[in-house]
């Protein structure tokens, strides 16, 4: 598949991360061979205009009245009601330059854009609340065993038609 070929102009983050943190234990992304371990596939159920979209963002967003994320294998999540004012959102994350996202969380947490698309009937709706976590988790096992099933169960309860996942 063409996706396997990395375009020549994109940033090679895995190489740069290894160079940048050469003196520390390496952050390892999970690797899945598309041939031997292809991703699961669930067909889209209905047109976009009728689909309720669940937002899950890993940029470390939380509400000012919630506990911040800490920086060591924090597999907790936060539920962010859609009507939360952007001024009440905070970010704690060590793995990316979050200055612009601090100024406008919409850079990595596009609730306002999704609500606008719902108002314009481009999408069927936005699932309330949105879900957030802090993506810099070094333990793939804990991500797989603790965080992912918890988020999965919430999305199933929310009866979302599509989960829209936004990393940072």
């Amino acid at each position: 598949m063409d996706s396997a070929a990395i375009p020549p102009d994109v940033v090679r983050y895995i190489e740069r991360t290894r160079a940048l943190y050469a003196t520390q234990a390496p952050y390892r992304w999970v690797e899945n061979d598309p041939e031997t371990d292809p991703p699961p596939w669930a067909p889209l159920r209905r047109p976009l205009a009728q689909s309720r979209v669940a937002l899950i963002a890993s940029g470390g967003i939380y509400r000012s009245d919630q506990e911040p994320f800490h920086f060591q294998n924090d597999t907790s999540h936060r539920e962010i009601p859609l009507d939360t004012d952007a001024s009440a959102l905070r970010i704690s994350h060590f793995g990316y330059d979050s200055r612009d996202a601090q100024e406008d969380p919409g850079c990595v947490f596009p609730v306002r854009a999704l609500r606008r698309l719902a108002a314009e009937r481009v999408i069927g709706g936005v699932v309330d609340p949105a879900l957030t976590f802090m993506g810099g988790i070094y333990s793939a096992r804990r991500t797989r065993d603790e965080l992912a099933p918890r988020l999965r169960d919430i999305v199933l309860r929310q009866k979302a038609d599509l989960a829209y996942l936004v990393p940072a």
Partner: protein
Amino acid sequence: MGLIARVIEAAGVPTLTMTSAWDITAAVCPPRSAFVHYPLGHQTGRPNDLDGQTAIVRAALEAAWRLEHPGEIVRLPFRWEGDDGWEERAYAPGLTPTGPDGKPLRVAR
């Protein structure tokens, strides 16, 4: 994030994963991905630009309906304007990135 996508998709809920890091996403291999060639921390757009953010989110969601192959990454047609050379500074504070030949990295544009 791709790991989360795979777990949710395996439960029967379709997923679309946003990405600005093609190599990481290709390694983790979530079911469907939409790539935006922006610096990390801007996967759904620039600050204080709701029109631009909405355009990216809309293009990504619409692209999900065109993806037919598990693991596919679709490239969205957005360019990070006004900051030429951001790719060479990205994720490299105080670092001069070098290519495999040891020379400073030059990014084709």
